[in-house]
């Protein structure tokens, strides 16, 4: 890898100040260091933020749960409050990676991990995300695992995080050092004509925490994959559902593995609200969300798969098989 400077930041302010030029923040390093070995990431300076005091999970007086950016994925998934009140989040984190990686990976790093598109990870091939203007090799190449929603001629990659899908369904936002909090819905972006940016963050922006508003609905995470563990999602769904008197009072649906960002299924949510909580409504809403899907050469299967998965997860939650509260 390219030789680089390394420094350990002791405060967020110092970390922010040290971030110049081609610097990168280092959390758990489970993705960044791999990309450096592959020559995909070539920072000239690593600022280690794993020692900052962002390692706690706290409940604020207003009921919001605030997760420090340095909280390890294992600790997040095992936290009592998270498990009891945000089962979708705990399930999503545990559905990702392996035990060893979760021990190392941080909350902030998980949010900012890069796509696992094979062309992005191979510097001998074109990729607009890695090298703007070089083209998208995946669009007409091997795209079994790629996007079906919101992709462009520029990029068909998907966001790989499970945790971010759950947080999207939970209407979470990120705290940034020296900036106003940013809802996850505004953090992630679609590729449009510039795939090089996964998020709306400016260079040097530092995530210090993730804030989850007071929960209130049962929720669940379902992830589909070819092997039973240690694989990125073909498709995943984070779903929260509030049913009263047999009707849907509220619901939130976020999808993983289908787009450049965690995909909030607003259309399905709108259609469902006020409708009877039946499998028929669930299926109609799921299919409506898929009306805009544009599958690629190899991933047409994701359209029925996503519809089935959303319908099934909603049905399970409605029948009480999902998590509290």
């Amino acid at each position, binding site marked *: 890898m390219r030789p680089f400077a390394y420094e350990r930041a002791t405060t967020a302010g110092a970390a922010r100040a040290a971030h110049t030029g081609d610097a990168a923040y280092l959390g758990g390093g489970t993705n960044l260091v791999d990309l450096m070995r*592959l020559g995909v990431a070539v920072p000239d300076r690593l600022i280690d933020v794993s020692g900052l005091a962002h390692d706690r999970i706290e409940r604020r007086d207003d009921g919001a749960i605030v997760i420090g950016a340095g909280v390890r994925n294992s600790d997040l998934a095992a936290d009592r409050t998270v498990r009891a009140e945000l089962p979708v989040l705990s399930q999503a984190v545990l559905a990702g990676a392996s035990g060893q990686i979760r021990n190392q990976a941080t909350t902030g790093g998980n949010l900012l991990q890069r796509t696992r598109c094979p062309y992005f990870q191979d510097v001998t091939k074109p990729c607009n995300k890695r090298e703007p203007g070089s083209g998208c090799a995946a669009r007409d190449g*091997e795209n079994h695992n790629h996007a079906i929603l919101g992709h462009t001629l520029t990029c068909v990659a998907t966001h790989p995080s499970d945790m971010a899908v759950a947080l999207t369904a939970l209407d979470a936002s990120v705290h940034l050092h020296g900036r106003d909090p940013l809802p996850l819905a505004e953090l992630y972006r679609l590729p449009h004509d510039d795939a090089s940016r996964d998020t709306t963050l400016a260079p040097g922006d530092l995530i210090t925490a993730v804030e989850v508003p007071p929960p209130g609905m049962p929720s669940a995470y379902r992830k589909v994959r070819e092997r039973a563990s240690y694989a990125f999602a073909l498709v995943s769904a984070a779903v929260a559902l509030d049913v009263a008197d047999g009707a849907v009072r509220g619901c939130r649906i976020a999808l993983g593995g289908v787009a450049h960002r965690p995909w909030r299924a607003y259309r399905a949510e709108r259609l469902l609200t006020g409708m009877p909580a039946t499998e028929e409504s669930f299926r109609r809403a799921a299919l409506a969300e898929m009306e805009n899907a544009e599958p690629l050469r190899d991933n047409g299967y994701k359209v029925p*798969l996503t519809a*089935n998965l959303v319908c*099934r997860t909603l049905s399970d939650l409605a029948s009480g098989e999902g998590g509290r509260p």
Partner: protein
Amino acid sequence: MRVEGREKVTGTARYAYEYPVAGAAYAFAVQAAAGPGRVTAVHDEEVLALPGVIAVLSHRNAPALKPVEDGELALFQSDEVAYRGQVVAAVVAETLDTAREAARLLRVDYDDRPPKVRLSPGDPGLYKPEEVNPSFPADTGQGDPDEAFGASAVRIDATYTTPAEHNNPMEPHATIAEWRDGGLTLHDSNQGASTVAATLAELFDLEPAQVRVVAPHVGGGFGSKGTPRPNVVLAAMAARVTGRPVKFAFTRQQMFATTGYRTPTIQRVRLGADADGTLTTIVHEVVEQTSTVREFAEQAATPTRMMYRAPHRRTAHRLARLDVPTPSWMRAPGETPGMFALECAMDELAFAAGVDPIELRVRNEPDTEPESGLPFSSRNLVACLRRGAELFGWDDRDPAPSVRRRGRKMYGTGVASATYPANLSPSKATAAAAPDGTFTVRIAAADIGTGARTALTAIAAEALKTDASRVTVEIGDSALPKAPLAGGSMGTASWGFAVTRACEALRADLDGGASPPVEASADTTEEVKARGDYARHAFGAQFAEVEVDVDTGEIRVPRMLGVFAAGRIVDPQRARSQFIGGMTMGLGMALMEESTMDERFGDYVNHDLAQYHVPACADVRDIDAVWIEESDPHLNPMGTKGIGEIGIVGAAAAVANALHHATGLRLRDLPLTPAAVLTNL
């Protein structure tokens, strides 16, 4: 416990790259980022200027090598690039990080053309190889299969495909090379020290005794280390050019173009039978790929030549010579893809004829080996099927597909036969007795994680009539008596044969009054040659249960059982590990293993273990292997048949057949994925 178990679990067992070497330099490989075509420039001056870079090797400056049979070893001998990913240069530096960074920065220019990499049954370039691996005829035939097929009451005509698959042993292909006193010492990860030493002597024009290959511990090979690979040549060349000991390993990503893989196959099988399922015709035609560098022809249809009785039969292999890395051995080459096709076709025939799949196989059991007419040294396929039926709970199975459902899951069970030849090669060995009552056995065998060292210790102790704790077996060194490689499931048989004979001779010397120190040696060449004409094969019956999610198409395998008849089992614990290891690899083949070729670039794109999936622990649930005790006097002194490969052979077909039973879907293309289930359900 394994003889070397303590060293392995405490991390003190050294693997090839781990030997401390004073003054070592580090090499890193540069792969062609284009191809096929020619290298037109290597801008080595740019990286030679970097601090710590010692040398850049390429066709422009590499020492000439003597030609050998395997063209993949002719490293840097010309500017030709046969396929994208071929090694075209190497950087040697003071540290690994410097070497890797310099390799990343090295600019190489190419004059390339579009790659031809698509394997297609209609390719006009398909040709018939002279023979298939290792030395079988490409085609065979008896009777009039076309006419008999047309006249059959029940007919199956189906095409099955298997993708390219990569071996992916845990330990990458790695070498430390050191030139000393005109000779070459190699710490190398391989499946046969004698083979590597002989090939390297040839390449570098040395006397065989001038090359020493040391490999006491090897972290897996699955066939990919059965022949020397470019890593050993690269390290030896870099050490010669720099005058330094050189350490070199391929990265996982690089292994997908440099260390072999299983060819993709397209297999058409035709089975014709009477109404009761008695076979009249078997036709098995295979299309597969090789490279422009060297011919490798996988023997996929050879098991069809000996599995079932039928008067009319034909097998054929056709190859496409493509701009791809040369395919090679991967666990049970031939049997693994071939039996997937044959055993799925047998299941289809059973269903079409309304005959139980086990009864169908029993009904077509031959008395002698079908094509050769040779007697079997022993054949207990039927016993395996019967025993498996009993253990797996087959007898109350409802044959109707797609009728077992619990909640949102569908369930089904399937069976397939397995077979693997009981190979044997000549070997040498010595056995020595010391005055303190201990024994040392020496043989250039390889323990690639199979437990070979432990099995040979038990075999030696038995022949010496002593306790295993008094016996030390030295292996993994070309300076030891010459032995065949760990391949073809013949290690224990071939090495054990020589070890037994050496130990028997030593025992006789001692019983005759010789006093230690005393040594005896053996060479089994004559005895191996003198064996009678028998068809020698191991057999097995493999069972699987699958669970299919109706919403997501996810396929899981809650239960797998293998029942094997593989001669005498020398070491039950290690044998069980071999069987279930093979079955687990077969599970991966069934559900996830697939190297995906990008036809525009001409390389395998999913070239790491995050993208090329093998089973995780969560995939492997209730899996068991048992065996039928066989006493077969026609094999070798131990009565063994070899167990390293047969476990994979029937696994994928058993899963595919179970998937049909669960869902009614006949998926003939591996791997069996949620995408395939959802699009067809």
